[in-house]
């Protein structure tokens, strides 16, 4: 079965997906009978290219390396904007990877609405539209009989959604809590080894973990967006960003860190979603954990999420929270889930 993909956004993650499709195209066809062909790519900075007969992922990647653009790739159509690409590329699945905006969800929200309304499946790693407007998008998807894949929005390639859905289907999740922002965990880990907050932040920026304006990470907005996604997708809640009781890490002093260490504890920025009496509540706040706690030993930019159900012991998933190929694999997992459901 062939699926035509339109990629909206061709930064790290889009290129990671292209790399996977370049390297694994044959084995995907052989093992799963799925042929994922890129027919269009549209990127704000790198331009647009569209060929309904398929674009070679290797050619796209080479073009980015040699020219920084994809416009140079030979194809019947160039210069389309994202909405025209979605409407006219002939894609069955739109992979939305534009930049994240946790205030409006745009421009991804408009892209996803357009794709779903046109009866196309969507897969996204973009937290904005999923955190802010999932209920509306889900409604359109259900009316049109198509799927929304969002595995990569939380913990990138570490399968938090898939594990959650598997557990959820039978056990019923009562609480989710974890380290869902790698940047702040990196900063806290460095502060524990004696670094100041400012130094740890600039190191995180130098390593590419933190952005030039770190507010989204350090004030807990990114984690809050993920908490909303977990609540709405895995617990059936309808929370918005304002419902999250949110405190960032900027108020933590080196004294706080050392005094916790002295009593055998560690500060972690914990995102938590809890269901009690049918009510789902969410919070993001610095929390002191005993070092024996499974989340306390998670250091650096690593992410972790603990699932509490009424039937099982707690299940904790630990893994990378970012990365080009990691997130690319999250998208591939969603693509194959669409194939499992519709490909017969």
């Amino acid at each position, binding site marked *: 079965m062939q699926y035509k993909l339109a990629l909206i956004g061709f930064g790290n993650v889009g290129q990671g997906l292209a790399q996977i499709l370049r390297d694994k195209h044959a084995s995907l066809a052989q093992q799963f009978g799925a042929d994922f062909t890129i027919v269009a790519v549209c990127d704000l900075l790198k331009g647009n290219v569209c060929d309904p007969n398929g674009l070679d992922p290797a050619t796209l990647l080479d073009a980015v390396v040699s020219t920084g653009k994809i416009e140079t790739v030979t194809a019947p159509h160039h210069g389309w904007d994202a909405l025209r690409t979605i409407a006219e590329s002939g894609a069955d699945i739109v992979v939305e990877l534009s930049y994240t905006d946790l205030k409006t969800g745009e421009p991804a929200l408009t892209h996803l609405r357009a794709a779903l309304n046109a009866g196309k499946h969507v897969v996204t790693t973009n937290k904005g539209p999923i955190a802010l407007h999932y209920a509306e998008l889900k409604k359109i998807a259900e009316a049109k009989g198509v799927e929304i894949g969002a595995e990569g929005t939380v913990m990138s390639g570490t399968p938090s959604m*898939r594990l959650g859905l598997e557990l959820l289907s039978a056990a019923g999740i009562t609480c989710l809590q974890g380290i869902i922002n790698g940047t702040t965990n990196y900063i806290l880990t460095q502060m524990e080894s004696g670094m100041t907050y400012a130094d740890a932040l600039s190191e995180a920026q130098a390593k590419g973990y933190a952005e030039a304006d770190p507010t989204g990470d350090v004030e807990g907005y990114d984690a809050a967006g993920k908490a909303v996604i977990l609540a709405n997708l895995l617990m059936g809640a309808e929370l918005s960003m304002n419902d999250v009781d949110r405190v960032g890490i900027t108020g933590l002093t080196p004294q706080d860190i050392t005094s916790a260490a002295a009593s055998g504890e560690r500060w972690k920025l914990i995102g938590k979603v809890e269901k009690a009496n049918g009510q789902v509540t969410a919070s993001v706040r610095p929390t002191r954990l005993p070092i024996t706690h499974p989340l306390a030993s998670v250091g650096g930019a690593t992410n972790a999420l603990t699932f509490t159900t009424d*039937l099982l*012991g707690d*299940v904790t998933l*630990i*893994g990378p929270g970012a990365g080009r190929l990691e997130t690319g*694999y999250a998208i591939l*997992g969603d693509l194959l889930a669409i194939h499992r459901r519709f490909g017969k």
Partner: protein
Amino acid sequence: MHYKLSLIGFGNVARALAKLLLRKEDLLKQQGITFSFTGISTGRHGCAVNPNGLDIRKALELLENGQSISALTNHQSPITNSLEVIQHSQADVMFENSPVNKQTGQPALDHIRTALGLNMHAITANKGPVVYGYRELTALAESKGRKFKFESTVLGGAPIFSVFRETFPLAELISFKGILNATTNIILSRMEDGESFEDAVNYCQSIGVAETNPINDVDGWDAAIKVAALVTVLMDTPMTPQEVNPTGISGISPQMIAKAKAEGKRCKLVCSAEKIGDKVTASVAPQLVDSTSPLYGMMNSSTGVTFRTDVILDYSIIETEREGMLGGPVETAYGLFADFVNIAKTAAR
């Protein structure tokens, strides 16, 4: 959709499963899933078959009073063994929970072959048939359009097999490392607090985690068969527990544990495997781990595994018991229950 269920093996795990299904009956009904029990086979208390549905509460009661369940049978011919139960139960799903056989995987292998052959789904918590029949049984299930599921064989109810395969479809598992046996981990944790080996074993027996004869846990065989199952399924390389050749914890003295503790380390029964080319080497042996290891924090009944693949950075799944959790058979029963619900939901789509 209605499912007729048969229970082959009716020990602690299967009885916990029956009770769990009864407890969740209304919830399942809301999701369009109903069930009845049409066959039960026990080790020492007879067999029962009734394609119109058995009285499961009565069966549980008889068993718990040590009585035979044979009188519950409503069938034209007498039913005397497990294979006859499978053949005459007309079940849609067969739960295989006979005792683990680490040498051959029998009789579980024959039970599952027979059930799949009769177009039943087969769900097991039994590691034997996974190790000795994974490829054959998976192919048979596929040819019949049925499922062979075994999530509860490793790490209780955490669905490590399906999550791995669905999330990293083309990934190659290069290595894994973890703690897979709760009994030995409890014993080592308690010895670290100064308890003797014998007292720690007695404790495990008193809470129902260890068997009357704890040798299977203590000598590393339970861990070895789990390693063999992970290698066989996720590394696609058949391996037996004998090839894992485990070293248990009976040689660990209180002095060794105290010395490790003084050095900031802990003694753990470490399970690992690594694939190099087409060759897999696996081991189960006590090792000292320091506080940078993900295994260091796994205390008491916590178990877990770290996976290394060719595609993404390492990821781990850890299961930790909560206060008040029953653990053991209930957790394993949950894994069987989840396999059933997943099959029923997939079929409903």
